[in-house]
C-alpha cells in the first residue's frame, strides 16, 4: 500500500492527459468544502436530547460555533505544519491521508453526537477533520501548477472553486439525509455524519488515486516558456524556510488575511443583515436564499478571477479586488438606505466573488513570486492567515456591532460602521499588495548564505 501511494509510482506516462488532474483535485476539494456547510447541523444539534425542542443539557449554539472555528484554525495550522511533507511525499499519499483524516473526523464526531460528548465532536470534526482540511486543501496545488505552467491561475482556481462548491452539495444533501434518518428518538445527525464520512472517504480516495505527477522536464505540447516574464515571475525557487524570511511572504499574508477577514465579516452576518436592513420585506427563507446566492458567487469568483489573473497578472487582479472591494463596501450602506434589494444583493454578490477569488489566485501568486517547486509548502504556511482571519474576523465584526448597539445605534445602522471598517482593511491590503516586489536573489535556493558559515580563508 505504501508503495502504491509513493510519489514515484504516480509519475505519469508520456501520453497522459493533463485534463484528468483537475477532476481529481475537485474530488478532494468538493468533499472538504463541506466545512462551509457545517452550520446546517447547528439547529438539530441543539435538540439532540430533546429531539423536538432543546432540553436541559442540550448543546448551545455558542458551544457549537466552536466546531467550525477549531476546524478552520487547525486547517491553517496543519497546512503550515505538514506543507513540507505534502510537497515531499506527493499528492497521492497526502490526498489519501487527507481522506483518512476527513472521514475519521466525521466518524469520531458521529460517536461524540451519539454519546453526547461535545469534546469528542471538537476532537473529531475540529482537530482530526481539520487536519484533513489542511492537508487536502494544499494537496493538489503544486501538482496542478506543474501540469499547467501556462495557466497556473485557472488550474488552481478550478480546484479551489471546488472548496467553495462543496457546501452547495453538502448543504442540501445533509438536509435530505437528516430527514431520512430522523425518528422519534433521533435527530438523524449522527447517522448523517456516518454516511457523509464514508462517502467522503470513497470520493477523496478515488481523487487521490487519480493524481499523477508529470515526469521531470515535462512541458505542455507546443508550449515554450516566455523569454520575457512579468516582473514578479521568477524562474528560480525559494525554499519554504527562506520564503518566510522575506517581506513578500508577510505582505501576501496581510493581503490574504484582510481579504478573508472582510469576506468572513459579510458571510457570517449576511442573513441577519439583509433582514434587518430591509425589515418587513425580506423573510427568513428569502435571507437563506441570499446566503445561498453568496455561496454561488463565492464559488464562481474563484474560477473567474483566478483565470483572469493568468491574463492580467496576479498583482493587478488583487489591485482590482481591493479598489473595487473598498468602493463596494463603502457603497453598501447607501444601497441599503436606497431601499433597492437588487442593488444591495448585487453589491454583495460582487464582493463575494472577490473573497473567493482571493483564495483561488494566491497559489499562483506564490508560484510567481517564490517559484513553483515548493509552492504547496509555502502555501501551507500562508494559510495561517486564514486561521487568523477565521478568529479575528468574526470577533472584530461582532464586537464592533455589539458596541454600537449598546451605545444606542439602531441595529440596521450598526452594520454601516462594520462595513466602513472592512473597506479600511481592504485599503490597507491594497497598499500591501502594491508593495510586493520581486524576491531578492539572495533568497533563491542554492544561493542562501549558510547559517554560521565562516568566511573562506584568504589564499596565502
Amino acid at each position, binding site marked *: 500500500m505504501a508503495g502504491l501511494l509513493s510519489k514515484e509510482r504516480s509519475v505519469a506516462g508520456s501520453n497522459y492527459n493533463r485534463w484528468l488532474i483537475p477532476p481529481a483535485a475537485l474530488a478532494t476539494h468538493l468533499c472538504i468544502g463541506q466545512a462551509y456547510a457545517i452550520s446546517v447541523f447547528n439547529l438539530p444539534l441543539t435538540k439532540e436530547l430533546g429531539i423536538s425542542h432543546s432540553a436541559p443539557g442540550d448543546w448551545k449554539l455558542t458551544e457549537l460555533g466552536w466546531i467550525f472555528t477549531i476546524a478552520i484554525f487547525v486547517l491553517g495550522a496543519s497546512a503550515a505544519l505538514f506543507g513540507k511533507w505534502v510537497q515531499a511525499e506527493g499528492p497521492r499519499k497526502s490526498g489519501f491521508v487527507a481522506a483518512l483524516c476527513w472521514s475519521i473526523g466525521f466518524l469520531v464526531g458521529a460517536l461524540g453526537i451519539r454519546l453526547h460528548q461535545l469534546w469528542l465532536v471538537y476532537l473529531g470534526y475540529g482537530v482530526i477533520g481539520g487536519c484533513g482540511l489542511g492537508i487536502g486543501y494544499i494537496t493538489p496545488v503544486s501538482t496542478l501548477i506543474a501540469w499547467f505552467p501556462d495557466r497556473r491561475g485557472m488550474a488552481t482556481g478550478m480546484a479551489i472553486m471546488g472548496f467553495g462548491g462543496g457546501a452547495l452539495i453538502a*448543504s442540501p444533501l445533509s438536509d435530505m439525509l437528516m430527514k431520512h434518518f430522523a425518528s422519534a428518538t433521533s435527530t438523524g445527525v449522527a447517522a448523517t455524519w456516518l454516511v457523509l464520512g464514508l462517502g467522503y472517504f470513497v470520493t477523496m480516495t478515488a481523487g487521490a488515486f487519480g493524481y499523477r505527477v508529470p515526469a521531470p522536464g515535462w512541458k505542455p505540447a507546443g508550449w515554450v516558456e516566455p523569454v520575457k516574464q512579468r516582473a514578479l515571475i521568477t524562474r528560480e525557487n525559494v525554499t519554504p524556510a527562506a520564503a518566510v524570511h522575506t517581506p513578500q511572504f508577510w505582505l501576501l499574508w496581510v493581503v490574504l488575511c484582510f481579504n478573508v477577514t472582510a469576506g468572513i465579516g459579510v458571510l457570517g452576518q449576511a442573513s441577519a443583515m439583509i433582514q434587518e436592513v430591509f425589515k418587513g420585506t425580506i423573510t427568513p427563507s428569502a435571507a437563506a436564499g441570499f446566503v445561498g446566492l453568496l455561496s454561488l458567487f463565492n464559488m464562481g469568483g474563484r474560477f473567474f478571477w483566478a483565470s483572469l489573473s493568468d491574463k492580467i497578472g496576479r498583482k493587478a487582479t488583487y489591485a482590482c479586488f481591493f479598489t473595487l472591494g473598498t468602493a463596494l463596501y463603502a457603497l453598501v450602506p447607501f444601497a441599503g438606505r436606497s431601499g433597492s434589494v437588487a442593488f444591495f444583493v448585487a453589491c454583495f454578490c460582487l464582493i463575494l466573488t472577490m473573497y473567493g477569488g482571493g483564495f483561488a489566485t494566491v497559489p499562483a501568486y506564490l508560484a510567481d513570486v517564490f517559484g513553483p517547486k515548493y509552492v504547496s509548502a509555502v502555501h501551507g504556511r500562508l494559510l495561517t492567515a486564514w486561521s487568523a482571519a477565521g478568529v479575528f474576523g468574526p470577533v472584530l465584526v461582532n464586537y464592533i456591532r455589539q458596541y454600537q448597539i449598546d451605545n444606542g445605534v439602531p441595529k440596521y445602522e450598526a452594520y454601516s460602521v462594520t462595513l466602513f471598517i472592512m473597506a479600511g482593511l481592504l485599503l490597507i491590503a491594497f497598499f500591501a499588495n502594491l508593495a510586493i516586489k520581486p524576491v531578492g536573489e539572495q533568497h533563491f535556493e542554492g544561493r542562501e548564505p549558510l547559517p554560521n558559515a565562516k568566511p573562506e580563508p584568504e589564499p596565502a
Partner: protein
Amino acid sequence: MTETNPVSTPQTSHALTLAFAWLAVLVPLAWGVAQTVKKALALFG
C-alpha cells in the same frame, strides 16, 4: 485483412476516462448549484 475496432483504441478509452472523470465531479456540483438557485429564487419571488 485485419479490422480495427475504433472503440478499443487508446484514444477512445482516454476520451471515455476523461468524460467519466469530469462527469463524476460536475454532476453533483450541478445538482448543488441547481438546489441553491432554487432556494435563492425566494429572494426575488
